[in-house]
């Protein structure tokens, strides 16, 4: 009986899990950290960081194409806040673009707009903004106020009155811009911060605790005994990861509940979907942490590696600074970080009511990252002391 078969494997993974849990419970400081980090961050981070990102992706749904609409779009882009990236044909298409996070703004120009302006009918143009990240959309919306002026200066021949600055300032503007701050009408920063914290806290705690778990065994000399036992690397890994999946789930629950209770974060989408994707995200982070632990020589190195990885996660994922405001190369880097995808998904589900269909790309990316990390971790785990 050399203990083969899937049952033997399950039994060994179970033994490993049990051991990890006992050690976790005995390590009071670590245990307290897992509870305190989310609570502290949630309270401390509740207040925002301000930036003015530019070149935000914008969809234009134009029902007519005239010199006036072109002038409006040109001055939109001139503000540097908007970059027209999509030209949807229908409202449904525009809606989808915004829900999936491809664009932050949808500009809708109604049919017969130019004619209505010429007739002095004072028509309206709609600008809908994704306000889940109010920092990202806020300054752009503010810039809209000057837009009418600039657009009209260019096209002043169609306005009955004389040029601006000739004493006609008190006349009403030729057209109106109606803005809709979608999903987060009051631009409450906490609505963005809470989903962000959910991702960063999970990243931090999951990474650190798994990164330490293998190096701790090496440092304490227990790895030698473990390797001399009939247990496979995959079994060691799964046994070590599993308890932390539960810790992560507990943390996520804590943060979401605190977010709802303290900051009135709405839950527009499905909590079940959120839970499933959070599970995926947790496992991805654990795999990465485990990879670090097989690379590091000791616990100190494991912690250092974790922090090195943590930094781009915080800065580039769209948690602190809006993703859309980043240069292309930084966006590419951030696409390789699980946190980037997770943040989009959490904001999508909690605030916009996104469904699994809206999030296919981010789910696929996250799964791919997880599989790569797992593969590296298992192949890096040495079965000998060589």
């Amino acid at each position, binding site marked *: 009986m050399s203990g083969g078969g899937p049952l033997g494997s399950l039994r060994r993974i179970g033994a490993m899990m049990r051991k990890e849990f006992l050690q976790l419970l005995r390590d009071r400081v670590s245990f307290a950290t897992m509870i305190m980090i989310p609570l502290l961050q949630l309270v401390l981070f509740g207040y925002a960081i301000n930036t003015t990102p530019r070149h935000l992706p914008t969809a234009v749904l134009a029902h007519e194409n005239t010199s006036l609409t072109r002038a409006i779009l040109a001055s939109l882009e001139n503000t540097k806040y908007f970059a027209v990236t999509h030209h949807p044909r229908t409202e449904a298409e525009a809606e989808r673009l915004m829900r999936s996070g491809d664009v932050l703004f949808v500009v809708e120009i109604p049919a017969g707009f130019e004619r209505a302006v010429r007739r002095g009918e004072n028509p309206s143009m709609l600008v809908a903004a994704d306000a889940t990240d109010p920092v990202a959309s806020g300054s752009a919306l503010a810039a809209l106020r000057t837009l009418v002026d600039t657009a009209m200066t260019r096209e002043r021949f169609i306005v009955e009155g004389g040029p601006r600055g000739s004493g006609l300032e008190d006349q009403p503007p030729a057209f109106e811009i109606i803005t809709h701050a979608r999903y987060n009408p009051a631009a409450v920063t906490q609505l963005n911060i809470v989903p962000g914290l959910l991702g960063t806290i999970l990243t931090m705690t999951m990474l650190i605790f798994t990164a330490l778990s293998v190096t701790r065994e090496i440092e304490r000399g227990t790895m*030698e005994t473990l390797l001399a*036992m009939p247990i496979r690397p995959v079994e060691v890994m799964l046994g070590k990861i599993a308890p932390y999946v539960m810790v992560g789930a507990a943390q996520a629950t804590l943060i979401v509940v605190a977010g709802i209770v303290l900051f009135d974060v709405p839950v527009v989408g499905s909590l079940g979907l959120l839970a499933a994707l959070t599970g995926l995200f947790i496992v991805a982070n654990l795999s990465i942490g485990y990879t670090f632990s097989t690379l590091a020589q000791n616990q100190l190195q494991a912690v250092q590696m974790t922090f090195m990885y943590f930094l781009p996660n915080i800065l580039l994922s769209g948690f602190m600074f809006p993703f859309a405001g980043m240069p292309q190369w930084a966006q590419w880097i951030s696409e390789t970080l699980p946190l980037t995808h997770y943040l989009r998904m959490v904001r999508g589900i909690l605030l916009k009511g996104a469904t699994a269909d809206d999030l296919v790309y981010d789910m696929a990316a996250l799964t791919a990252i997880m599989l790569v990390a797992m593969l590296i971790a298992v192949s890096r785990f040495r079965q000998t002391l060589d």
Partner: protein
Amino acid sequence: MSAAAQDTPVPVPVPVPDDAIEVEGLSKSFGERVVVRDLSMRVRRGQIYGFLGPNGSGKTTTIRMLCGLLTPDAGRGTCLGLDILTQARAIRRHVGYMTQKFSLYADLSVRENLEFVARIYGVPDPVGAARAAVERLGLTGRDRQLAGSLSGGWKQRLALGACILPSPQLLLLDEPTAGVDPKARREFWAQIHELAAEGLTVLVSTHYMDEAERCHEIAYIAYGELLAQGTVEDVIARSGLVTWSVTGADPAALARELAALPGVEMVAPFGTSVHVGGHDAAALEAAIAPYRQRPGLDWRADAPTLEDVFIDLMTRSKDNFAKDGAGKDGRR
């Protein structure tokens, strides 16, 4: 892991061979340093086999190769009839390995450690098995104590208990009694003999000469090379060493004088007496002849001790080692 098995496939353990360990030409280097060189040995089932040698001689490395923790650079062999190169996983199931340093989980209790081991090895009723082991170890009442808080002797006892819990066929013990008090050492050896009597094969590395004498057979390794093996009597007889012991005033001064003489290869003060030895009996006798006349000195021919033999082996192999220019003192 490494590709191997050009030799005939070794049959799966069922009809057990007489040899628990049978290896040939094992070598292992770490970088430039050769830690074990062309080592061959054979350990019969049910034997207690002592593995002796100075620090850094390659004992630990050899043991790690036997249980598949290290892959040898060259050589072949079997452990319990299983190939050490290709069947390391199957070997692990039947081998209990006790590391030099205490390597159970210090932050788990005695019982939790034992249960963990039982579960990993698939022992039926792990809880019951652990409880039985606790009783056998005499740790009843302390089973909830954290392993890290046990004293040295108890840690060693627990480690041995964990090793034998999955009822292995071979025990590999790496300096199990280092830093343990004499009483605990004696109890430990009594237990080893009991286990051997039940048919378990034990390979134990040690520094202590008195422990070597408790083994059925011994092997002496220095600088990665196996220098002698056999029963204690064999090893002493084969050494070809002739020794005299002299008792008298000021043994330290006497030892200094004697060491300078040609034909004297080894001088070791033992309390009030001095042990003098060499390989050439005639030359040795000629050298000490003038001193035998000296009043107040009591000379007598005696048999070399195991320690004499080992010190001699080590000195000579060190000379060879230095001559080879292989340099660097091996530490591991």
